[in-house]
């Protein structure tokens, strides 16, 4: 019973956090938690293909970055009073930019998936990386949209007339999206499609013998995962008021992967643990030493070698021992 209350408790705690942070005079805490939630969405979307579907994609930042730029470019045209491709007017309305970002990421995931999913294993890792690098190179050289420097989204977006420049407003938007996303993901995991995906992860040959063509289902999962990352990228753009080529870089794909592995591949809550651990360590270690990556690497080694299934797996075996 307490296990079922845990998500509810977490949501309540997250909802109270801005007040507590304010009271403790720790405004940085609110921003840290907001970033953790965004990265948790992105990592969880990667976990949908990597953990639930067994597809090791090393190009997940492509969709995160595309979502990021979709918001940035729409805002750019809004501020400029010009239109994209000559006919799409810009906007700062979050109710339009957010779905647009998801749609763009999903479309690119469909295109990349159609080609990349014809390969497997190392080839799949490399081809997803290659596509992500192509998109990265494209945006870096796109001088009209800031090139190397990225795009500043000065006044952020608006939602129902409220400016999302307000850090507390955007915090609650991020919280609402994160709660919605994880609820949706939980449904997907237990759905008809989730069951087929779990079968494909375990044994594709068996699924073919059941009359399932794995390609279609892997592509569907790939598109759903791309859309999730696009949503996270859009939130990041509004939160930081900045669309950056960094969100497309291969190191970002690596960070998502580290979060998933730290938290526990295939675990539903793993990406939340992974994102939280990664960002907390990143922030605190970086303020302490510039060689923070050394400690991150040691932790990753420990988690991979000494736990079964990352932090989520370690918690699970800890619970089992004290039952």
């Amino acid at each position, binding site marked *: 019973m307490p296990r079922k209350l845990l998500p509810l408790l977490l949501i309540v705690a997250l909802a109270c956090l801005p007040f507590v942070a304010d009271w403790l005079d720790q405004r940085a805490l609110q921003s840290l938690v907001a970033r953790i939630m965004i990265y948790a969405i992105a990592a969880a979307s990667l976990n949908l293909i990597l953990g639930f579907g067994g597809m090791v994609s090393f190009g997940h930042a492509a969709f995160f970055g595309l979502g990021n730029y979709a918001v940035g470019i729409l805002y750019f045209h809004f501020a400029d009073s010009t239109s994209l491709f000559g006919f799409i007017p810009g906007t700062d309305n979050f109710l339009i930019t957010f779905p647009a970002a998801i749609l763009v990421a999903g479309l690119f995931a469909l295109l990349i998936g159609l080609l990349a999913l014809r390969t497997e294993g190392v080839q799949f890792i490399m081809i997803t990386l290659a596509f992500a690098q192509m998109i990265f190179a494209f945006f870096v050289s796109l001088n009209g949209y800031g090139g190397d420097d990225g795009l500043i989204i000065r006044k952020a977006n608006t939602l129902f007339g409220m400016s999302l420049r307000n850090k507390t407003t955007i915090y609650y938007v991020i919280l609402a999206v994160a709660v919605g996303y994880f609820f*949706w993901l939980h*449904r*997907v995991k*237990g*759905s*008809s*499609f*989730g*069951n*087929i995906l*779990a*079968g494909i992860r*375990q*044994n594709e*040959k*068996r*699924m*073919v*013998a*059941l*009359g*399932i*063509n794995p390609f279609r*289902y892997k592509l*569907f999962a790939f598109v*759903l995962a791309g859309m999730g990352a696009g949503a996270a990228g859009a939130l990041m753009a509004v939160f930081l008021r900045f669309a950056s080529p960094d969100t497309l870089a291969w190191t970002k794909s690596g960070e998502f992967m580290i979060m998933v592995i730290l938290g526990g591949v295939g675990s539903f809550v793993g990406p939340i643990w992974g994102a939280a651990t990664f960002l907390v360590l990143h922030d605190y270690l970086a303020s302490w030493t510039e060689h923070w990556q050394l400690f991150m690497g040691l932790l990753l080694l420990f988690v991979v070698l000494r736990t079964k299934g990352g932090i989520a797996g370690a918690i699970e075996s800890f619970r089992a021992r004290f039952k």
Partner: protein
Amino acid sequence: MTAALEIRNLFKHFAGLTATDNVSLTLKTGQIHALIGPNGAGKSTLINQLAGTLPPDSGQIFLEGQDITLRHPAERVLLGLGRTFQVTNLLGEFTVRENLGIAVQARCGRTLRILDRISGVRTIWDETDATLAGTALEARAGTVVDDLSHGERKQLELLVALVGKPKVLLLDEPMAGLGHAESQDMIQALEKLRGQVTILLVEHDMEAVFALADEISVLVYGSLLMTGTADEVSSSKEVREAYLGSEDSPC
């Protein structure tokens, strides 16, 4: 009446080797047809071409009159061509019940919904439980496949294949690795299927072949040596030579 499965002039060459050499074969509806032959005769190559995992160089395959030569393996399954594997191929992390459930689910085509709850779909689980009822695996319903014995996995593979309601079933050495008692159980289980499913049985266990087969085809060096009843095959001098080798055989 059209044949359940018909193979016409099938050829498959590998570098320097003709693995399937002009094979034509007809499976009569409801019969158990055994395919035997010494190691390396091309039995697995033939099965893989029938299942669709290996494309033939030329020739055609018909399932109940329909040309399936170019169909994707998954499509053939949905058209009614089921199979089991020589080395068992199941979902290792799923329980016995879940392995059967996903087979029912796949057959019903309920596979792309993302917001339903698979554990709550009564029709799927009712059929799963009905399939399990009365079988030796009923007591093992909640056991993960990785924890099953080899014999139990063989039984489960057969059950999973039957859940797909195939018209033709390709059985790739269902007795392989089974003990004597388990083999007897498997023979009985297959005997019950006679008349309901057309079966192509690839098997090394001659006791099983002679007990089950309505017709036997002998494959040697990729080509069909003969097709006949158990008596005809066992009394054939050529078949004995193919198995035991003649005087000037290189090995």
